[in-house]
């Protein structure tokens, strides 16, 4: 039987997609391990997922407080060691506030909470997270957020575009008002990704789309590789 890599799903006070994320990871071949935010160390895991929700009530700015959680120190060390880390929605906001991903998520330009399917294009398939996608593939994944408008300054944007770090872009419609239609970004090293749409809500075609499974399976593939090569 194929080995199931262990992937930590962090749980902050106010996280609300942690159980969906854990279920979805299980559906694509991982063994999810929930980790409470107060834990100073991660258990023996080969990947990390930061789920959606409203950590610490979104006080101050989304993700601004969660970044100081003890578990986030462990996540930063895990990422520095090359471990794969995926942040979804609030998880993306936290990774940006923690400086693990470039930019910041601002209130949607419409000021309205959006909750609907979004179509995103995969701009590269040579990353661990998008390796299961076809070049230019369009994925249907639901977006549900009030503060999903990704932003960076013009100089940084140019740099990120040149380096191919703008990994997912909205097609047809930009539901959040994100700069350059950006729905997801990856770090320069290629092991940390964040996105506003929720792949964990799109792993079963019965619920409208199974496209999210492709991205989650990419995380699981990367985790499985770490399983094969003990640190």
């Amino acid at each position, binding site marked *: 039987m194929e080995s199931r890599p262990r992937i930590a799903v962090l749980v902050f006070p106010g996280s609300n997609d942690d159980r969906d994320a854990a279920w979805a990871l299980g559906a694509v071949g991982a063994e999810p391990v929930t980790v409470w935010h107060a834990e100073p160390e991660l258990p023996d895991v080969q990947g990390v997922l930061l789920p959606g929700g409203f950590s610490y009530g979104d006080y101050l700015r989304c993700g601004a407080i969660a970044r100081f959680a003890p578990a986030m120190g462990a996540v930063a060390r895990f990422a520095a060691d090359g471990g794969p880390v995926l942040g979804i929605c609030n998880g993306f906001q936290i990774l940006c506030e923690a400086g693990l991903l470039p930019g910041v998520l601002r*209130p949607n*330009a419409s000021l309205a909470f959006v909750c609907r399917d979004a179509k995103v294009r995969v701009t590269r398939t040579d990353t661990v997270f998008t390796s299961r996608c076809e070049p230019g593939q369009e994925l249907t994944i639901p977006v549900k957020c009030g503060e999903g408008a990704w*932003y960076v300054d013009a100089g940084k944007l140019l740099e990120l575009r040149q380096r191919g770090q703008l990994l997912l872009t909205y097609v047809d419609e930009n539901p959040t008002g994100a700069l350059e239609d950006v729905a997801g970004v990856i770090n320069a090293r290629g092991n940390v990704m964040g996105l506003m749409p929720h792949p964990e809500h799109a792993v079963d075609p019965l619920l409208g789309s199974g496209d999210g499974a492709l991205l989650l399976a990419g995380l699981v593939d990367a985790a499985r590789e770490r399983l094969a090569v003990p640190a």
Partner: protein
Amino acid sequence: MKATVLVRPKEGILDPQGEAVRSALGHLGLPVEGARVGRVIDLELPAGDAEEARSRIEQACEQLLANPLIESYEIELEA
């Protein structure tokens, strides 16, 4: 010692909240050309050296109270 931190959306950054307030002010009969919405944080600090307090609050602004990518801040100290 008391300190007040004023956090504002940086110039040139779209402020949808400010836009909504501007539009609502128009409905109220007070047309304004612009409105920007920021945040006020009142701090109470133990008595001590004002300059040191200022520099520590500045660090806190850079790391937590504001996101320097999109927000500017001002610190007012009151002995």
